[in-house]
């Protein structure tokens, strides 16, 4: 059963990896592999040697992703905290609105957003692209962090309060360390969204050296309109997923400890 699930989810990835590493002839007839000598790094060389280089797109996406993540967390943490700790009458309506916004299909927004980009001259600016991304990520981030804050017993903060810690010190020494697993998993989700987003990037960015990964990959063309450059596509997706893989591995420990956080209370 486990093997089946693994095959199901990892199969396409391996197929992609395989496609990126062989010549087009081998791809059409995998039997040739047995003959040997058909492995190649040509697809990768072509991508990185092109102008602008594929590394440029990775960098662009990283800039947008980091900007989006930083902006989202900066706004989401205080918002989630207020939502959880202030027991006002508006609380449930705000949460329902957030849930609605989080579930809204973002594709429907790209025309309106394009209008905004034109109006405020935000096109072709990577950090400006972080603005709609952060806006779209915020509802989900706030909801996730609010749940994490709800899991923190308020006595922890009260104990710190009685010990003479002011609000800033409580945030620094108690709240943020305890929220770090939730912050890490939220950050990854937001980064992932920004990394994969296509329609808004397509409409906001037109200059070749400012493209983000998804738009750049879509522009990869073959030698003629009839040739689909499978190998180049495959190499691009492999290169595009490596940074994410690294990121997840890096934060894996804190994400896993986020899952077991309930164990330390009591």
């Amino acid at each position: 059963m486990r093997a089946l699930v693994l095959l199901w989810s990892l199969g396409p990835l391996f197929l992609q990896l395989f496609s990126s590493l062989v010549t087009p002839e081998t791809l059409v007839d995998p039997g040739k592999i047995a003959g040997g000598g058909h492995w190649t790094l040509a697809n990768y060389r072509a991508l990185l040697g092109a102008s602008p280089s594929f590394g440029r797109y990775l960098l662009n996406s990283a800039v947008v992703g980091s900007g989006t993540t930083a902006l989202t967390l900066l706004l989401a943490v205080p918002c989630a905290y207020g939502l959880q700790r202030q027991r006002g009458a508006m609380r449930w309506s705000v949460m329902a609105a957030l849930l609605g916004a989080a579930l809204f299909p973002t594709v429907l927004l790209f025309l309106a957003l394009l209008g905004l980009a034109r109006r405020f001259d935000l096109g072709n600016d990577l950090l400006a692209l972080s603005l709609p991304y952060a806006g779209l990520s915020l509802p989900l981030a706030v909801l996730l962090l609010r749940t994490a804050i709800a899991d923190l017993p308020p006595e922890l903060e009260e104990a710190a309060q009685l010990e003479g810690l002011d609000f800033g010190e409580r945030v620094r020494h108690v709240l943020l360390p305890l929220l770090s697993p939730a912050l890490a998993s939220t950050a990854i989700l937001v980064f992932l969204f920004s990394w994969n987003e296509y329609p808004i990037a397509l409409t906001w960015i037109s200059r070749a050296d400012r493209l983000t990964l998804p738009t750049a990959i879509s522009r990869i063309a073959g030698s003629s309109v009839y040739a689909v450059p499978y190998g180049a596509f495959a190499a691009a997706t492999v290169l595009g997923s490596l940074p994410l893989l690294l990121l997840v591995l890096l934060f894996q420990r804190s994400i896993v400890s986020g899952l077991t956080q309930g164990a330390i209370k009591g």
Partner: protein
Amino acid sequence: MSGLRIQNLSRQLGNRLLLDGLELTVAPGECLALLGPSGCGKTTTLRLVAGLDQPSSGRILLGGEDITGQPAGQRQVAMVFQSYALYPHLSVADNLALGLRVRGVPAQEREQRIATVLELLQLGNLRSRRPAQLSGGQRQRVALARALLRQPRVMLLDEPMSNLDAQLREELRPELRRLLCGAEPPVLYVTHDQQEALGLADRIAVLKDGRLQQLGLPRQLYEDPANLFVASFLGRPAINLLPAEGGRLLGLRPEHLRPTAAEGLPARLQRREWWGHQQLLLLDTPRGELRLLLPSGSEPGDSFQLDWPRACELWFEARSGERLRGFGSENTRAL
């Protein structure tokens, strides 16, 4: 006067009165237990004194100074929470150090104070453990250490032992008394466990529905309760209440009843619980079911007559629960 003084303290939430005109003083070195069922206002009182909640009216004085409006961080009060509220991400030593560090206590003094308090509570070998790696009793001691380290002007404890098993509670009670009571800061100890209150506190305040029912020495409360609530809240097994003429109730503690050869209240044995050092007999009498506590060795037989010392009778007005004083012996026969 130093110590803690609570004047006419009330807390209203919506249209519910959580606390209604509480008057209390706790002298320096005194341990006062706030005792009552859940929702009686005892934890509310503690949070008001700590500054975690604001009163609707009334004043709180600490060492003669009005601290009612002061923010919690400035009051120099220490509190042990029911859940202990240890910082889960910090080691025992860091849990203790955080408050001192933030207040700018120099590293050397900090280290020394922490070492002293760890020594006092026999926690020295656990200093680098995280709270998750401690047993319930150890966590409770760390929470206590954090409060003692504070050198507070008043010590507040919110059901500090309710998360521990019965045996551990019994073991820790004398230790808690040694650490807390008799030291300079007054102690306010919230509990719903009468055994804890009777065994630990110098005085007990019994609360119900936000109102003080009675304040006095443990023995006073038990032997001379102000009303029906105090009489039936204190004492296990609970006091026997016999309906009498004129809408009165006669309260008789199970240990005061005794089988007699002379004429008395006829009783028939219904059920027996053997507790080792004592036995509880449930009796059928013409006045209803009674509980009788006897030494475990005695064998009164299946039916016998019951008697009791007249001085132990507690009379109440059934409707209001008020205690009827100076009413007694000659009326007993009217039963």
